[in-house]
């Protein structure tokens, strides 16, 4: 099943299970969303439950907050993660704060789904992985599942969670295939996943970089190298236990992400490791991320900006040889 289908099925199952769940966003109706993720839902659930909005990101996100405060469970779609900046105020100053600042009197059980990342040639305003923009917002949970299985289990859990959860999908992941358990399948929102155990080093990654890192593992196998691939899955909170366990096991760390290197999730992960596992480190923690430049439209240029398999292989080699 495609990643995009897994999202679709998770939505459909939750819409069926709980009448308080509804979706809102742009072109999510008969159009089925810019990436076809919501296809068929409008026909099945109608305009109340699949509510197509005008292009007003800030306010329809704020409306989700208001509806959630009254007990509904809105699932907002922001068509491209790049547009999240328009809606950030309501995430920062409302959604993330309400439960705490109103002292637990109200909660905000909403989900915001949005695809980050570069699909190839979409250019500066349609390609960004803005995961780190959200990291410093207390009160938000942030997850970035990388496989069809994960996204089904995570999205269903996110919808049932009583807190605002941002689910970062990825345009490059939508057409990826994988097995997905049928029916009820829930994953915790705060757990990393060791996708491929190894001994040489820990590669910590998430979202569209995960399949790349798995491919790197295959590529370096013949050299006798054996990295452990840890999918962070949850970016807030980070699953410290799993991260530290892997680091203590391997002693070497490479963090790979699609967000800009500077100020990325990798910075926080690296800082946590430096605080808690310094003694276990056999080499400096390495980070790979997008170059600190806007993402060019030209496909030929895009690849210089985003981490490629070769870049990861090179980093793995460097880290081994340190």
């Amino acid at each position: 099943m495609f990643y995009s289908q897994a999202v679709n099925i998770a939505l459909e199952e939750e819409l069926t299970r709980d009448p308080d769940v509804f979706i809102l966003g742009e072109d999510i109706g008969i159009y089925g969303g810019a990436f076809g993720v919501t296809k068929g839902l409008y026909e099945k659930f109608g305009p109340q439950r699949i509510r197509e909005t005008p292009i007003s990101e800030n306010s329809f996100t704020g409306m989700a907050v208001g509806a959630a405060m009254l007990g509904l469970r809105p699932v907002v779609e922001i068509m491209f993660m790049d547009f999240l900046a328009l809606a950030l105020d309501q995430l920062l100053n409302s959604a993330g704060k309400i439960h705490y600042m109103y002292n637990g009197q109200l909660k905000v059980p909403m989900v915001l789904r949005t695809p980050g990342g570069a699909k190839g040639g979409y250019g500066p305003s349609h390609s960004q992985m803005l995961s780190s923009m959200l990291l410093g917002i207390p009160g938000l949970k942030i997850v970035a599942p990388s496989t069809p299985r994960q996204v089904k289990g995570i999205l269903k859990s996110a919808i049932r969670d009583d807190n605002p959860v941002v689910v970062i999908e990825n345009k490059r992941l939508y057409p990826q295939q994988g097995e997905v358990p049928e029916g009820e399948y829930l994953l915790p929102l705060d757990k990393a996943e060791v996708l491929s155990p190894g001994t040489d080093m820990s590669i910590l990654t998430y979202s569209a970089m995960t399949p790349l890192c798995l491919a790197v593992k295959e590529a370096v196998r013949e050299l006798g190298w054996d990295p452990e691939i840890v999918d962070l899955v949850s970016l807030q909170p980070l699953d410290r236990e799993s991260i530290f366990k892997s680091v203590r096991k391997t002693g070497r760390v490479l963090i790979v992400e699609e967000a800009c290197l500077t100020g990325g999730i990798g910075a926080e992960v690296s800082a946590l490791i430096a605080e808690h596992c310094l003694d276990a480190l056999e080499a400096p923690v390495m980070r790979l991320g997008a170059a600190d430049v806007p993402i060019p439209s030209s496909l030929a240029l895009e690849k210089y900006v985003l981490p490629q398999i070769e870049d990861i292989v090179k980093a793995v080699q460097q880290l081994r040889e340190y």
Partner: protein
Amino acid sequence: MEFPEQTLLDCYARMCLIRAFEEKLAELFSQGLLGGTSHFCIGQEACAVGVITAAREDDWLISNHRGHGHLLARGLELQKVMSELLGRSDGYCGGRGGSQHLSAPEKFFLGTNGITGGGLPIATGAALALQYRGSTQVAIVFFGDGASNQGTFHESLNMASLWKLPVLYVCENNRYGMSNPVEKACAGGRVSARAQAYCLPADTADGSDVEAVAQAASKALEQVRSGAGPFLLELLTYRHCGHSKNDPRIYRSKTEEQQMWERDCLRITRDKLLRRGIPDSRLEQLKTQAAEQVQAAAQQSLQAPFSSREETLAGVFA
């Protein structure tokens, strides 16, 4: 609308309470007992009291930074409000929210809001939830003339209109957004004139006349409750006080201020009651009672404890 005598008396009492409450806050500020900042609604009490008197008790209220009138008109417990502003653990939000972030869902008071225009989408979403559930409740949101220049005003009213959501948008046009006169911030100077852009019905009422406010709000609410969709009500009012704690009010003339005191809503209501034959002494008594209530609440709150470090660091997530 002519209120029955008792209703008008109740309104007057409530307005006195709000005024006394904020006067007490000013005192606490000057004594160094109250921190942060706070926005008084002195002069605008009739807006809050008029609209909320016209509303059902279970209509959801969404307020802004200038919310003391709204929450006291809704009948939140004085002492728990006072404690909240004084940052105490027995406040509505345990001292976390303060004046600009205070909610009391059991009173259908969804919250004050520190982001200008930030309450508009929230109210619109609350109305969506009410419609979704087939409720006859209405969401009522208060905002200022200044807030009407935020993009959220446009986006929210447009969506509410498209979907016929049960929301009453109440703009308290007090002529200024902080120091900025409405004519310099809001092209045309009248917020209700913007309603037609969204095919919304709108009305304007004299915000210093509590009966006029209630009448306009009643009509509007009836329409909204009937399923006709949202309504924009503009109340022409004035804040006699500064924008917030330390405002020297140099952006307007003393003459203007004096003229507006003549139209003070408490004074107008008082005159109405006197004309109806209520003795002055009774009205004085209401004022005194309000002051005493507020005094008692403050005294009690000042004794209340603060939350501990442990409590303070907990509760981010539900």
